[in-house]
């Protein structure tokens, strides 16, 4: 009887295992409940793959961009507005992975661990979400792209709020085109080029090379470079310049966007210093922008010959940059060396989304030097009247593509502390930066200035 009594404790082991299982179950509900409840297979929320009931999505001025009416998702009444805000708002099916519909769906449906989705089921309402974007500005930017592929981003470099988050091509979520998967004009339509695109940066990268030069060549300000229309690297190979600039100072080299000068500077700096600067500027990092991981830039000189370093210094070679990250670079320069991480969702529930996380990118002194160089660019090159009353500085890029039309770039920022906005414009295969990207930036910034 005694041994038997002891052996009965085997039951205790089974009970313990069962209780451990229950604890595991509770923990997994605590950890993953939000993901599970917001699954597209949840019939409370989705019907035929479409989100049915969820909170509204508003822009910074309270314009309703999406809402649920009688179990159907309705978007803004203006088709152009729908297309312009598609990548920020997202679609009802979840094709746009970086849109608020997907990124914030647990908030939109009002899930929490205590109530589950009780409020949505019983009262038919989730939580509203306010975006930081200005829908009107987005529409203007989208129209300025006039059917070309590319993106326009604007953010406040003091607060991190993204006011313009436009990617093209786009489509109307209420009338999704039938040929979207086959027609080449919709190539990469679900991608948000601002957050997840990667493009050869062209001359906008000269800002990076300049940063490196200011930090590493003490007398860079008094140095001169000679340009005869091209630059020959020490190990052979030629970089063609966009002009015949003669003798130029460092500042003028940026204003003229002189490839000869910057290739020479790049080779003098060498691959280690350039790589170090690129990393310090965070250009090869991915940032969490309201829950969307941005694309990491690519800068790899490990197998580069001297001539390749020369090309890399002017934003060619194998280098690829993310537009939002380049916008952050302009913001950091204008903001004195640091920038908050941008965000486009203003949370109604907690401050976790859109909390002000800054990243230090360069010294205040370096930033000041770059500010005056960029400002000089606008005043003496693109024309200050394109950005009236904004103390604007910027840099264009015309990224050469093998056998294709160049990408047109512009990155810039207002140096006025009372108007702390930075912009990036990329027109894919659009042509020259000054001719194509600057007018778009000008239009958008003027509209923002009002």
């Amino acid at each position: 009887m005694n041994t038997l009594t002891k052996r009965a404790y085997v039951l205790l082991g089974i009970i313990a295992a069962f209780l451990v299982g229950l604890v595991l179950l509770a923990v997994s509900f605590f950890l993953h409940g939000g993901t599970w409840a917001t699954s597209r297979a949840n019939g409370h929320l989705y019907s035929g793959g479409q989100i049915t009931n969820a909170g509204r999505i508003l822009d910074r001025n309270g314009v309703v961009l999406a809402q649920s009416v009688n179990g159907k998702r309705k978007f803004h009444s203006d088709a152009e507005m729908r297309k312009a805000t598609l990548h920020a708002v997202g679609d009802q099916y979840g094709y746009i992975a970086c849109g608020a519909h997907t990124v914030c769906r647990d908030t939109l449906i009002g899930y929490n661990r205590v109530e589950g989705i009780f409020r949505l089921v019983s009262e038919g309402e989730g939580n509203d979400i306010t975006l930081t974007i200005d829908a009107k500005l987005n529409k203007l930017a989208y129209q300025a792209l006039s059917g070309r592929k590319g993106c326009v981003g604007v953010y406040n470099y003091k607060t991190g709020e993204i006011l313009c988050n436009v990617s093209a091509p786009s489509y109307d979520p209420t009338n999704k085109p039938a040929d979207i998967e086959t027609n080449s004009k919709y190539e990469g339509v679900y991608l948000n080029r601002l957050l997840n695109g990667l493009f050869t940066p062209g001359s906008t990268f000269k800002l990076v090379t300049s940063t490196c030069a200011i930090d590493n060549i003490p007398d860079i300000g008094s140095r001169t470079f000679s340009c005869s229309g091209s630059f020959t690297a020490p190990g052979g190979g030629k970089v063609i310049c966009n002009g015949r600039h003669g003798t130029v100072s460092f500042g003028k080299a940026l204003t003229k966007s002189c490839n000869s000068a910057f290739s020479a500077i790049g080779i003098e700096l060498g691959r280690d210093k350039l790589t170090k600067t690129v990393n310090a500027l965070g250009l090869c990092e991915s940032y969490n922008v309201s829950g969307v991981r941005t694309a990491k830039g690519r800068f790899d000189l490990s197998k580069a010959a001297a001539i390749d370093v020369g090309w890399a210094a002017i934003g060619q070679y194998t280098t690829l940059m993310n537009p939002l990250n380049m916008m952050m670079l302009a913001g950091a320069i204008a903001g004195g060396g640091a920038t908050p991480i941008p965000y486009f969702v203003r949370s109604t529930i907690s401050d976790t989304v859109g909390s002000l996380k800054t990243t230090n990118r360069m010294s205040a002194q370096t930033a000041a030097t770059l500010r005056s160089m960029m400002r000089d660019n606008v005043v003496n090159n693109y024309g200050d009247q394109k950005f009236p009353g904004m103390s604007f500085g910027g840099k264009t890029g015309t990224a050469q593509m093998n056998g294709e039309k160049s990408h047109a770039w512009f990155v810039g920022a207002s140096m006025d502390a009372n108007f702390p906005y930075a912009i990036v414009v990329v027109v894919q295969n659009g042509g020259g930066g000054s001719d194509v990207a600057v007018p778009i930036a000008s239009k958008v910034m003027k509209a923002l200035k009002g």
Partner: protein
Amino acid sequence: MSRLANKEEQKTRKKSEPFHWLYMLLLVTAIQIISGGTVLTQIQEAQLEVLAVFGSFLVVEWLYFVLARNLAGQRSTELEIIAFLLSGFGLVTVASVYPNYALKQFIAILIGLGAFVILLALMRNTEVVNALHIPVAVGCVGLLALNLMLAKVHNGALNWINVGGISIQPSEIVKIGFIFVGAATLEKLQSARSLTSYLVFSLGCVGALFLMRDFGTALIFFCTFMVMAFMRSGDIKTIGLIGAGAVLGAGLIVYFKPYVAKRFKAYRHVWEYMNDSGFQQTRVLIYSASGGLFGLGIGNGRLRKVYASTTDLIFGVICEEWGMIVAFCVVLSFAFVAVYALRLARHARSTVYAIAAVASAALLLVQLSLNVFGVTDLLPLTGVTLPFISRGGTSMICSWALFAFIKSADIKTYPKLEIQMEEKS
């Protein structure tokens, strides 16, 4: 009896039953009236029939306790409280999804209660148990053989037979016999011959379940067998051999039976197979999480529309509609029962009762774990029912019968025997 002795008796009574049965019964009745009433306001059809069923259930419940306490002299009725609480909860949950099924489920509870009472009577004397164990063993094997011959393929498992329009699951009935035979044989396990014949019986049962492709039930039998063997033998070598053999067998089954392999393919990867072999598990997770702690309300769930919602997936239905707190309370009550069984087994009057009580509690917990953790993807999904709660008659009868085994280990169940034993000592 002197006044002093009377007081003594009252003291022990207080000690053995920490909560007064009447208060417990009133509490359970209150819970049942509230939950049943809510279900009645929610269902769209057969309200009158369901009302009659709920009412009859309450009458039967009260009748049982009044008779058991006063006529049969039962002094501890905690197990019955839990059995009624759980069956009642199963009844309202099933009725909330299929109002037309309420009557069938109620009849199953009645048969279960009957089985409970009869089994308690049979278990009173070890002589009766010993006399019956060979016929029961033969009956079990016969039933499984009959099942193999007549079975209809159901969900890929051949574990149902149809008798006059009523489908029964013989393996559920065999569970009762398995413990009965096991406890009886193992008590008097002296010769190698009786060990061999018992092993042949057990392997026959598990083997038949493999042939029926009812992997979940086979696993339950196997675990129960291990617990019973451990309770009796104590010889680690024997257990090791048996265990190794069985594990090897199970491994071969997994290897050879594409059906089992396919079922296990989705295990821990249910989201990758969410529209085929992971369908049920992902739906349980989605809708359980939707319910939160307090549920979406009876009738507001969506899991009820998923296949097998009131059988295999009923835990998810409870999570979604009644909330996680209620669902966890339901399953935790089985852990309480197991602790209770352990306590009884330690003071059991003979090995038969200790083995029967521990094996029954183990079987219930293993089956509960396979169900709850199977549908939530913590364990592979094997498609077994949630005892007392799931829709289905044979499962209900088996649950009540297992409770009878636990209760039979309590000497207070047999007041006359208790007095005899006290007199002897």
